[in-house]
């Protein structure tokens, strides 16, 4: 049954982060003949443009593998599409919206994330759109809950034996009764939230060493251009040539404190030597950067979880996209340092929960 009155199409949720803007678009597939006849050209154009392409401009990308079909939202059935582009292209996006005549359809567009504040003026000025802003944390949590419950294939998963390449398995995790849990959202920076129930949660910590740090450092250190490139480079490297291990310092395990020799004692510690700097590869450096940032996040997350008395920690955010290395590292670090008491969980839709939540918030509020 269609609820009425309904928010007019198109249905968008947008999450503008420090590095990436994330867009969730609901494509209605139950369009009646009557609707089809009255559907304005502009709406058709937008629908066709978004669903007919997988890449937009030079940098916009639709993550086809994440598409959720047969979704019922506000009585309508359709597909959810997940699209991302760099926040630095925000102005181009605004121009595109103008070119596609978006403002003729709606007087506002909803958004969350820091960019919802930062670009408010630009939306008003260039396309006369009011940005409807939603709370970032609300959106994130609501998005997680919606996608977890509505993804037909399993959304939540964990790694078994993350540290053993042969025996490592990705296994589904039943996230239906998750409370209390912690969310570690790794975007440019990192936010950590404790979630006690569906609507009781708070930001408890964070760190400035996040995805932006990885990409920024990799750009400076290796000259790479994109996150994908940096991850690809890292996957070919060996951080042992860059980091000093306990063994490098103590000649073996540090038994007094139960520290195995292979544990990293000093990230980038070898790089104080000129000879080692000259012999190391860019891939090694990229790998060390990735491992350093990853381990640090895992370490802070673990302590926060213990401080909060929480056992399940969900890692989300676009830093984890195409980044199994980090996920396995996190899984292993959490398991190892907590002696099995903490579980690292991951979600398939990594960075899109804020945008998803934003779309849900929009639909909840109804038309203006």
């Amino acid at each position, binding site marked *: 049954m269609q609820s009425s009155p309904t928010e007019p199409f198109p249905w968008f949720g947008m999450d503008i982060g420090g590095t990436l803007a994330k867009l969730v678009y609901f494509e209605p597939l139950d369009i009646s003949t009557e609707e089809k006849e009255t559907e304005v050209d502009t709406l058709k154009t937008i629908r066709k443009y978004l669903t007919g392409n997988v890449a937009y401009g030079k940098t916009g990308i639709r993550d086809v593998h994440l598409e959720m079909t047969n979704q019922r939202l506000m009585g309508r059935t359709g597909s959810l599409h997940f699209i991302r582009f760099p926040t630095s292209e925000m102005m181009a996006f605004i121009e595109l919206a103008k070119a596609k005549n978006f403002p003729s359809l709606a007087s506002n567009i909803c958004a969350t994330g820091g960019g919802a504040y930062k670009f408010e003026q630009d939306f008003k000025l260039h396309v006369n759109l009011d940005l409807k802003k939603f709370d970032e944390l609300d959106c994130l949590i609501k998005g997680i809950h919606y996608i977890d419950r509505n993804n037909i294939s399993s959304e939540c998963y964990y790694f078994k034996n993350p540290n053993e390449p042969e025996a490592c398995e990705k296994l589904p995790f039943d996230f239906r009764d998750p409370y209390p849990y912690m969310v570690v959202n790794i975007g440019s920076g990192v936010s950590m939230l404790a979630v006690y129930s569906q609507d009781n949660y708070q930001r408890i910590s964070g760190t400035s060493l996040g995805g932006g*740090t990885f990409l*920024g450092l990799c750009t400076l250190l290796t000259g790479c251009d994109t996150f994908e490139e940096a991850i690809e480079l890292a996957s070919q490297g060996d951080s042992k040539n860059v980091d000093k291990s306990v063994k490098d310092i103590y000649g073996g395990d540090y038994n*007094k404190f139960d520290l195995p020799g292979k544990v990293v004692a000093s*990230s980038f*510690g070898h790089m*104080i030597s000129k000879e080692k700097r000259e012999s190391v590869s860019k891939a090694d450096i990229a790998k060390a950067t990735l491992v350093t940032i990853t381990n640090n996040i895992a370490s802070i997350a673990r302590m926060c979880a213990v401080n909060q008395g929480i056992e399940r920690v969900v890692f989300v955010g676009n830093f984890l996209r195409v980044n199994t290395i980090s996920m396995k590292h996190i899984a292993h670090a959490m398991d190892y340092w907590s002696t099995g008491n903490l579980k690292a969980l991951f979600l398939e839709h990594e960075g899109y929960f804020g945008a998803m939540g934003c779309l849900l918030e929009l639909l909840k509020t109804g038309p203006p």
Partner: protein
Amino acid sequence: MTDSSYSKSIEIPNDLVFKNLKSAKRFAIDIGGSLCKLAYYSTVKKKRSLVSDEDLVEDKPGSHIYKVSETDEIGYKLHFVKFETKYIEACLDFIQQDVIGGCHFPNKVIKATGGGAYKYKDLITQKLGVEVDKEDEMECLIKGCNFLLNNIPDEAFMFQRHEMPEYRFEPVDPNVFPYLLVNIGSGVSILKVESESKYERIGGTSMGGGTFWGLGSLLTQAKGFDHLLHLAEKGDHRNIDMLVKDIYGGAYSALGLPSDLIASSFGRAARSAGGTEDVSHKPEDIAKSLLLGISNDIGQIAYLNAKLHGLKKIYFGGYFIRGHPMTMHTITFAINYWSKGDIHALFLRHEGYLGAIGAFLKGTEEADSEKYSWRWSDMDVTGWKENLYSSSGLPSPRAFENPLPRDRSSTFDMFELDRYEKPQVHFPLLLDPASYFPDTEDLTQDHLAMEYWLNCFQDAIDGFVQRAISSQPNTKDAVERAHKFKANYIQKLNELRENPISHGSLTVRSLLDTREQCMEEFNFSDPFSEQKQKENEHALKQLKEYLDTLDKMDLDNRNLSLIEGLLAGNVFDWGAKEIADIMATGNFGFEQAKKKLQVRPWLFDDYDAWAERLKGPPHKCAIIFCDNSGMDIILGVVPFARQLLMNGTKVLLCANSRPALNDVTHSELIILMKKVAEISSVIAGALQDQKLQVLASGQGSPCLDLRCIDHDLAETLKQNETDLVVIEGMGRAVHTNLHSAFSCDSIKIAVLKNRWLAARLGGEMFSIMFKYERSKKVQVST
């Protein structure tokens, strides 16, 4: 070894660095990646003034009551020298010239710790002919930290950039445990220390000094760690980091994130974030971003560990800190931010020496042949005193902003300690030892006062030089040494002017102590000995008549006269320049002194309360900290003590263990009291029955630091249930202890003999301070 980074040629100023090597024993070494710390202990032969009443021809007119002479004594010193590891070979060569034979290395071993202990093992064995015995690094750090916290006042401080004071030194807490020690070397180890023997590594992070250095070296052309710090000092991280305002356009108030907070370190360095054009980033900005990112992270992780274990004291050490203001500020900020101001980051003045101290102590613990009758680092026992004169002190914060080309003296950093003759403890009658500070004023917080006192000490120096020379008339090199003393003391004053916090709070006490230590360094053991002798004899001659006068008075008048006598006696002070000038004329007696005193009501006048108290039951036992020789002790203190004895109060007369100015020393006081006993039967009887005891304070200063008094004195105090503390004189009751609170009644009494200070306190020259304070102990009502 073919390490090209060795520097073989370095000039070692042998009068300043590696002192007393010929008598050095028991070496230990802490070899870090960039800095090397050598520790050893030495015996030094030094002059000590000796007073003796043996073999004196009695009652011959003009004969002395005691003989003054000098004797040699052995002093014990701990030396720590810090230098860059690249000079290690040159330094080992230098040491090798002086240390020949087995006596320097018991069992032919040297204790070693630190990451480089393994790397340089063969070099050490080859150069010094000893085996290297490696000690666990963390254990050494903890031992070193415990030692410093127990022994060195003003060791720990909070750093509050742009605040007043910028360096806030912590009191010496008799209970140092439990605490968290965050050691930032190449990586970071977080240690929870619960007692001397109980500690564990509860966490750490691989992002530490090695990360800053290593990543910094990849990202910039900086030549080494210090260069990176220097770059960071000039950089602006906002060109590299993504701030909250870069993402939100302003603050994110709902989450309490200020707009300048770093949201993503290096977040602006990615191309996609900065647009497509290739921006070149300044090395200064990169270095700063890196320093902030790592410091913040360490602060956060330290906080999380402290919270997990319910600890409030977090000390930071390791080469990453190195007294660098920006690093300390960032860590402080992070701890403050995450703990919402509940926990403060603490830093150590001698953090670089923790490992070397610990390794050295390990060596002494294993050796039972050494003549240490008491443990070195017992929980509440202090055994060593920082030599303010010979130690380099904390580098000036400005040194990081403008690194000067290195000169000889900055190549080496020295930390020297003198052993107390006996163990020292907190004064047991302090109300709250954990919050006690001896000093009334920290000059670093008052530039006018600092200027005044530094000039005051500088102006007085020629008088000291003259007195020093005339105290050793038969010694050939006295003049030369006295002038060396002058030059070096002036240099020290200038260093303090440049960097007042180098040895902790700058106080009148620290300036006085530095001068005493400098005098001792140049072998002037007791320049005032003959002056004191003369004045003691002179005063003794007047005692009988004075006591008779007092005894004729009624009790009320006598009690007031006794206090006035204490005050008049206290006028005779060679440490106060204006008084010294008057006394130098020779025509200044007890009666003249009385006339100088302010008439009642005094500047601080609790006399009526004291007189009232005297009508009540007598105190059980009084301790009197004596000040000057001569009139002060004989005509001031003795009659006052005698009256207390007659009232039924036991009296503990307490004098300096070592000479300072014209203050009466313990050994002088013993002889003086024998002479007094010949004059006063009350004194004679009390000495006989131990109702009157003469004790040594453990100190050798014109001031009184109640954090380190003689252990035996503390025991005697407790045994006698002491319930009255009398502190006399400017040094002990005004410059220090003016605000000290005791758990029993106390009297603080002094004549203000410095015009400037008197004016500051709202009085004038010869204004009088008589503070009588009842016990501050809160009686718990049932």
